């Protein structure tokens, strides 16, 4: 497995979706290649960082329109 091939398998690896044989090759490659270790770590950091995004709040007019709708709904 080359570095170029490994980078295409990182998500399958992180999702534990690699067949056993490929997973072993993947891990063997990592044990010998610090560039790919760094790459996989960068992908992990990317996932973690995306997960820490705070959502934008919605436009205030839309928000108050939705809350108005909620009050109407509540009245039945």
């Amino acid at each position, binding site marked *: 497995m*080359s*570095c*170029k*091939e490994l*980078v*295409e398998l*990182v*998500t*399958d690896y992180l*999702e534990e*979706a690699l067949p056993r044989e490929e997973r072993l090759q993947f891990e063997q490659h990592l044990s010998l*290649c*610090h*560039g*790919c270790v*760094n*790459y996989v*770590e*960068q*992908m992990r*950091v*990317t*996932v*973690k*960082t*995306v*997960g*820490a*995004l*705070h*959502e*934008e*709040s*919605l436009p205030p007019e*839309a*928000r108050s*329109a*939705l*809350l108005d*709708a*909620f*009050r109407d*709904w*509540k009245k039945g």
Partner: protein
Amino acid sequence: MDSHPLRDPLAEQNEGELVAALRAGDEAAFASLVDRYHASLVRLARMYVRDPAVAEEVAQETWLGVLAGIDRFEGRSSLKTWLFRILTNRAKTRGERERRSVPFSSVTPDSDEPAVDPERFQGDAERYPGGWKESPQPWEGDPEERLLAGEVRALILDAIEQLPPNQRAVITLRDIEGFSSDETRNVLDVSETNQRVLLHRARSKVRRALEQYLGETE
């Protein structure tokens, strides 16, 4: 996958209480849901409707759908899956009606897109074909912490914004919303394999954007 329990009103332990609060007309409960999920709903709607203003409308209609349906919600799926399914159903209908819908095949990935620029690997005539020309280096500092500065946050949102709609939808559900792959497949009607391919491409592009920003290799 983390499911962001601290800021997620739909964390499972709260779900029953939340449904009860909505049925009882608790405005704060409704507002917390809207604040938390509206942006993701809009982002996902854009997989089916191209016009951002229409996507915004579809998301707003989804909230009305939640109110209309909450009394009949039986908890067979999680509330979160239910919410996003209402959204995708409405967005599909809207997309078809306006004949702006992206063809059905758009849920499947397009042809190959390498995760990393092929130029970064050695060619066949070089010593290690397919090996890095220059190894990636560890990133300095912690981008997650630097998110607080706002700049990285904008950069990532921009990178996600530039993804094809199907990749944007998958990374939104999986990595922003913390959906499992099963939940994601359920919401998007996409196969396990395609879901993973889309996620891989989306994450790879966001990684590249972070790498460029962090200035390690460019």
